[in-house]
């Protein structure tokens, strides 16, 4: 009797659910995955090599393009690294602006990540709702930075420009001002968007069927594989670099770290991200209060035109939207960084795919890819 054979399937690089040019080779026995291997590198743009021939300031726009959905956090991580290397003091107002922008960016990035996961599971409407709200953040960002997606807004030592007039708004701004003032957006987001997500997807029975119990990740495995950010927290590890290794001025803000169960599944990863958006909104509110009470225009110190950090080495751990962004910077005293190493969370998380996928259905594969929320720009750099 002839035996049945395993089917080798090639998902990507041109596949609707691989979030960019990811290629995953999957072996199927029936519908069950027996083996999976990601193949990356389709979007490699030599970020690290390019940086070695740029000055420190010129690298900032390139960092935008690593994780292009979360540009401000990348700029922030890089600026923190250079500032630590040079010992630059950042003005308080600039710090608050940076934190506020980073948290708005985190909301924005999570919205897209969750929306894309919903889209992969077949809920097109959830994706478009995420897009609608992201658009509102983008119009705010456009007014603040001039760019909609890639900003080049942070400068070493501060930010490029102060917030424009009237963008902060007042805490009473409602839905009608959601794309005009930041307060308006936050109020709209907390009172309207988050309940809508709960109604449409989180509490949806089919959505729970599709995500609960899929790809559980034990906390020890998560740590051993270097998982970070929402993926790590969904496995029940209460670890947030903003609290545990505080940088910038995060120790001045009050917020909680959402965690999932001991064996975090796709649903936990989803819930943790939704919860994180809520916490980010809390941080933004605190930052807005401070910014409204402390007007000023000192947003960047005077620095020489060409920065020449002293010889040395620094490694910054930064809680980006998708996890721990590590910036390893080596300076040889010249105007160009001697080496830049970008430790990207997505690159590390993608290693989990061969661990998580086997034993699940092909349809779960895309739930897993969606729940670890990868951005190929950051995987390949």
């Amino acid at each position: 009797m002839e035996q049945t054979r395993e089917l080798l399937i090639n998902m990507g690089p041109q596949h609707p659910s691989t979030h960019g040019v990811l290629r995953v080779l999957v072996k199927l026995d029936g519908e069950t995955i027996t083996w999976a291997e990601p193949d990356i590198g389709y979007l490699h743009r030599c970020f690290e090599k390019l940086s070695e021939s740029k000055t420190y300031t010129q690298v900032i726009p390139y960092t935008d393009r690593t994780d292009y959905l979360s540009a401000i956090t990348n700029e922030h991580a890089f600026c923190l690294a250079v500032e630590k290397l040079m010992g630059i003091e950042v003005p308080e107002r600039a710090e608050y602006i940076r934190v506020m922008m980073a948290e708005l960016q985190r909301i924005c990035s999570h919205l897209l990540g969750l929306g894309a996961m919903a889209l992969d599971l077949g809920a097109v409407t959830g994706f478009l709702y995420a897009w609608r709200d992201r658009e509102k953040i983008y119009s705010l960002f456009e007014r603040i930075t001039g760019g909609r997606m890639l900003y080049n807004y942070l400068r070493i030592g501060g930010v490029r420009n102060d917030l424009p007039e009237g963008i902060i708004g007042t805490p009473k701004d409602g839905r009608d001002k959601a794309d005009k003032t930041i307060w308006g957006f936050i109020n709209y987001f907390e009172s309207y968007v988050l309940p809508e997500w709960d109604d449409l997807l989180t509490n949806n029975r089919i959505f729970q069927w599709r995500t609960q119990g899929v790809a559980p990740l034990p906390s020890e495995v998560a740590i051993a594989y270097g998982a970070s950010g929402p993926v790590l927290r969904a496995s029940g590890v209460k670890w947030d670099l903003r609290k545990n290794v505080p940088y910038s001025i995060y120790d001045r803000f009050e917020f909680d770290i959402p965690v999932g169960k001991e064996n975090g599944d796709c649903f936990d990863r989803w819930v943790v991200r939704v919860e994180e958006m809520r916490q980010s909104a809390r941080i933004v509110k605190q930052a807005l209060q401070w910014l409204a009470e402390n007007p000023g225009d000192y947003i960047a110190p005077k620095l020489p035109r060409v920065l020449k950090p002293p010889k040395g080495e620094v490694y910054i751990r930064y809680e980006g939207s998708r996890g721990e962004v590590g910036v390893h910077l080596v300076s040889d005293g010249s105007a160009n960084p001697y080496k830049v190493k970008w430790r990207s969370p997505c690159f590390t998380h993608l290693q989990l795919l061969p661990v998580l996928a086997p034993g699940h259905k092909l349809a779960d594969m895309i739930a897993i890819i969606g729940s670890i929320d990868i951005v190929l720009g950051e995987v390949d750099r």
Partner: protein
Amino acid sequence: MSLADLWAQHWFRAFVTGSLVLVFALGNFYITLWLERKESAWIQNRLGPMRAGPQGLLQVLADLFKLLQKEDIVPRNVDRILFLIAPFIAHIPALLIFLVVPFGPNMVVADYDIGIIMIAAVTSYAVIATFIAGWGSNNKYSLLGAMRGAAQMISYEVTLVMSVIGVVMMAGSLKLSDIVLAQAERGVLGWYLFPQFIGFIVYLIASLAELNRAPFDLMEAESELVAGYHTEYSGFRFAIFLLVEYVHMIAWSAIAATLFLGGWVGPTPADIPVIGPKLFGWMTGPVWDNVWGFFWFLFKTYLLIFILIWIRWTFPRVRIDQLMDLGWKFLLPVSLFNIFLTGVMKYGWNVLAESGSPLRWIFWLWR
């Protein structure tokens, strides 16, 4: 009239009605496609097509013209015969369903005595087209889609057939026009939606699965299988599959409207001329009866189509094992229970109505 004349007459009538049904199917395909786009846009805070014609009404036409100009590609290593005949096979059952659907009091093409069995037979034939298309494409995604499609469709076939038995028990006939007439007397309250509520829900879910529409569109799940069984089809061959899908949707909605919502019957009891066609005294007579019947039939059909589209754009997609579990472990027992319930209630009414016991009002809906 000689036998040959009789045959010729039937052949002629068959061609004419067939063409009319084809036109009906194509026209409604057009409207449904437009409706799907507009409704999904409405659900998703978008505008949908706006450029081509008022409210984008001509958008579908524009898309069809685009598809007309697409090259007809037959990939090199497909199973050529199967690949080529699949769209033809797919189109046949979509049209055959309309044979027995009563569009109005006197508007039914062929009123078979075994109407419902005929529908069940014809629709289970649709799975063959899916399977042929998927297997013939020699593509892994198509193959998976076809496999899923076959499993899904045979599973829900059973559920679908079982959920309709309650209606047949109520009406005592397999003929669709009889089923409609049985619902005609008492207006809205006479519709089988109420006594057969369980059956209606089961039918709705099962027909979603049979139509392979979201949340059960597993055989063409675009995020998993690219386009499922019709990945390799291009141009108008692909358009045929699209057409068939929507015509099936119209057909299933029409059958649901006929079986559960009273078909062409208006919402008021036949003898109470309060609202509805009888209000306008001059709109009576056999022709106007047909017109109003057709109106109510279309109205109900589009109501159901609206619901199907609404469901599609709201829910995430289920997984294949969950789909099978839902069908075999939940819907099938529930529809068996529905048969049991209908039998008991119907029998209870029959017994108690004779005795005149006040208890009979419990069974009133199942008269």
